[in-house]
């Protein structure tokens, strides 16, 4: 029987840079800044850290972190799981302290995208350069096309449903001083915005950002030595796609099977039977509005094909029964690839400490973070549940 991570690793401090187009910040700047905040929060120094896991998609490896922090001959491992690299770093650090190999580990995620000189992500190509031409928005747009078709939504109805997701995230992001995009928008603005990849418009897409986030993880028996309220890892499940959805006709392209499976496994690991009732808040991988919509269904927050009802009822608003993206999400906090998975835990961390200011949710118990890499038919999805 596989073991469980539940309550076997605890977060005692976190840090996160402001996300955005950080023209004056290099990767080492961001690594130093996020790490310093996390260490200070935990009340330790870099010398106390015994091992580091670093998540980055385009980064140059763990060596960069060691170099940035001038670590003194410590083990540093760079992990990569596409846009899910952040959670992968947390997984490495959590498992290491759970195994009792180390007492204190640092999980760090970073990405410096804005030095590429061109908008968007590099490397959407295959070995033979015959990959179809669409951008990442296009790949997810095809999920929206299919979702609208399957559930009988006209383009207007579908876009309106998705638009409300973005309006909500912008509302939350406006309250977050570290977010990349900090202004409220109206549904009219969303619907009137230029089309990026039909049917997705500008406001259906997340920001392309620089940023870094870090977490200090320790053995649970050590938590009393730290000043903060410890936040325990309750579940950490990663599900990699067999990538058959683009080959075989059984995949419906209106859900992400890997998210569904990772959710089921995570709920089981955490002992959750009614996620919609038991989860206090969620940070999901809303790279595009349609991704958040189907994720609500994949994670069993909404019944299949009926997320529209919950969106319209305001369920996922900050004031709703299950706030989603209270920090603005990828949509507004921004999406520095490797950092996003850890940023998704930063908001729960602040919420549990009661430090989320205007975004503060009352009495959170369990928070879910959903980190997804790659296309809907070929992703790796991680679901991490943390709580008190």
């Amino acid at each position, binding site marked *: 029987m596989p073991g469980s991570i539940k309550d076997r690793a605890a977060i005692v401090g976190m840090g996160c840079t402001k996300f955005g187009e950080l023209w004056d910040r290099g990767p080492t700047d961001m690594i130093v800044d996020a790490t310093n905040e996390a260490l200070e929060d935990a009340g330790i120094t870099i010398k106390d850290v015994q091992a580091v896991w670093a998540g980055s998609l385009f980064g140059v490896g763990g060596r960069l972190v060691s170099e940035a922090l001038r670590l003194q001959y410590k083990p540093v491992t760079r992990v990569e799981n596409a846009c899910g690299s952040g959670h992968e770093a947390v997984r490495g650090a959590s498992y290491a302290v759970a195994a009792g190999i180390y007492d204190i580990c640092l999980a760090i995620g970073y990405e410096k995208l804005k030095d590429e000189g*061109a908008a968007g992500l590099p490397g959407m190509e295959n070995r*033979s350069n*015959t990959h179809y031409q669409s951008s990442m928005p*296009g790949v997810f747009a095809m999920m929206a096309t299919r979702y609208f078709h399957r559930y009988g939504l006209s383009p207007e109805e579908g876009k309106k449903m998705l638009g409300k997701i973005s309006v909500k995230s912008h509302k939350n992001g406006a309250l977050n001083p570290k977010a990349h995009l900090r202004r409220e928008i109206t549904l009219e603005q969303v619907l009137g915005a230029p089309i990026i990849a039909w049917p997705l418009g500008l406001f259906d897409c997340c920001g392309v950002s620089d940023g870094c986030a870090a977490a200090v993880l320790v053995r649970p028996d050590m938590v009393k030595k730290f000043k903060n309220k410890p936040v325990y890892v309750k579940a950490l499940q990663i599900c990699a796609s067999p990538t058959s959805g683009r080959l075989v006709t059984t995949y419906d392209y209106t859900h992400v099977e890997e998210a569904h499976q990772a959710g089921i496994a995570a709920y089981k690991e955490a002992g959750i039977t009614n996620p919609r009732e038991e989860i206090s808040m969620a940070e999901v991988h809303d790279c595009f509005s349609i991704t958040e919509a189907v994720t609500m269904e994949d994670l069993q927050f909404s019944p299949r094909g009926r997320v529209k009802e919950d969106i319209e009822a305001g369920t996922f608003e900050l004031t709703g029964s299950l706030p989603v993206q209270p920090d603005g999400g990828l949509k507004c906090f921004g999406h520095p690839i490797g950092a996003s998975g850890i940023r998704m835990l930063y908001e729960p961390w602040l919420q549990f400490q009661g430090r989320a200011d205007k975004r503060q949710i009352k009495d959170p118990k369990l928070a879910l973070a959903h980190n997804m890499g790659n296309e809907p038919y070929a992703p790796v999805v991680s679901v991490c549940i943390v709580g008190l």
Partner: protein
Amino acid sequence: MVGITSYGAYVPWHRMKREDCVKAWGGFAMPGERAVAYYDEDSLTMAVEAGRDCLSDLDPKKIDGLFFATTTSPYKERQCSSIMAFPLDLRPDIRTADINTSLRAGTTALLLAHDTVKAGSAGSVLVACADVRLGAPAGMIEQQIGDGGASLLMGTENVIAEVLGTFSISDELAGTWRGDDDRFIRSGEDRFVMDEAYVKFVPQAMAGVLKKCGLAAKDITKVAFDPPGDPRRHGTAAKQAGFDPAQLQDPYALFLNTGITGCAMAPMMLVAALEDAKPGDVIMVVGSGNGADAMILKVTEAITKLPPRRGTKENIASKVVMSNYNEYLRWREIVPQEAARRPDKQHIRLAAVWRERKELLGLWGIKCRQCGTPQYDNGAATTSPIRVCAVCQAQDDFDDYNFARRKATVFSYTQDNLAAVTDPPASVVLIEFEGGGRAFFDLTDRDPAKVEVGMPVEMTFRKLQYDRGLTNYFWKARPIR
């Protein structure tokens, strides 16, 4: 009996009104439209499409040779016919050759194919020709010429038109030419080119082949030969050779719709003649340029049994008229364009595309022997070969399965304005093939406004990328023409 056993043609979907050239530059507009290869087409892809039309119901594995004729080869050094053998699904143990540089390269290839089969060196040889020539902007040549292709299969079984005889004359006189550094066609003085070359060589070749076959002009049902830039000279040459206007394969049928398609013009006119031919008809085809080639064919009963092809007629009828001349300039990269502000495309990996040539150029996938699922994987990491079944995980227990001729329907799509493409938006579709299998492809020859879930599509061979002298070819989906 040696002769033509099948034919096919290809005309790009896009047409430009000749008056649009005049709107851009002023001057005199010739009547009609000309065909314009889309930005993802070149002479190689168009010849493949013509070849696919020719082979539509035939077994390509029985063909022993492929001759590709063009004056606009995508390569100076590298054989195109050996690339084309993959999309045409020919065997590797065949004779391949590219025949280039002369405007009669198409008929030369046809004569060579005939000689090869007649000599017994091959049972059948496929001739595929196409051209995408460029006249410099603002000139008459730009209006006169057009893009297109033709294909003829020469063989000994089920001959629809028996070759009665051939004749060639050679002369170094160049009516038009392009030197090693020339992108656009150059030409000599009209009167010299027309009167000293065309109007002399063409009748000479006609007389030569008639004499060789023991026939007179009156014995010919239709004479198919390419018109020069000024198509009126076509009639002059025919008259000189003793033909009545009624005997001429109408050059205007093509000229007004496609333009003069370079070395593919005479073969396209021959295809057009065969489309209307009856058993017993005698057809003469002449191709000119630096001399002339001529061939006389006698149509047999077998022509009545050849299933219909798209040929020139259906290809001409299926079209969209371009909205302006600028599109033509962009597709042919005649004027520099601002680069998209997107990450650069990676270089072509020669080893990777070679390794996957069967999957990429031939559109071969697999069918699992255990669960029976057809599969094609144009993946993020690699395009096959598939080693593990995506459905039942069986390993290496597959039969080859070809997708190139299968129809499909659109399962989902996007119109991507962000992707860096020559003619935005990038229309991308996830399609499901009849008989099973699904894959993503770029959608070409489309009106973005008409793309929808459930739309029927078919596969077409296109160029994707030009990088350091290499052209990367692959398949795209297109709405059924």
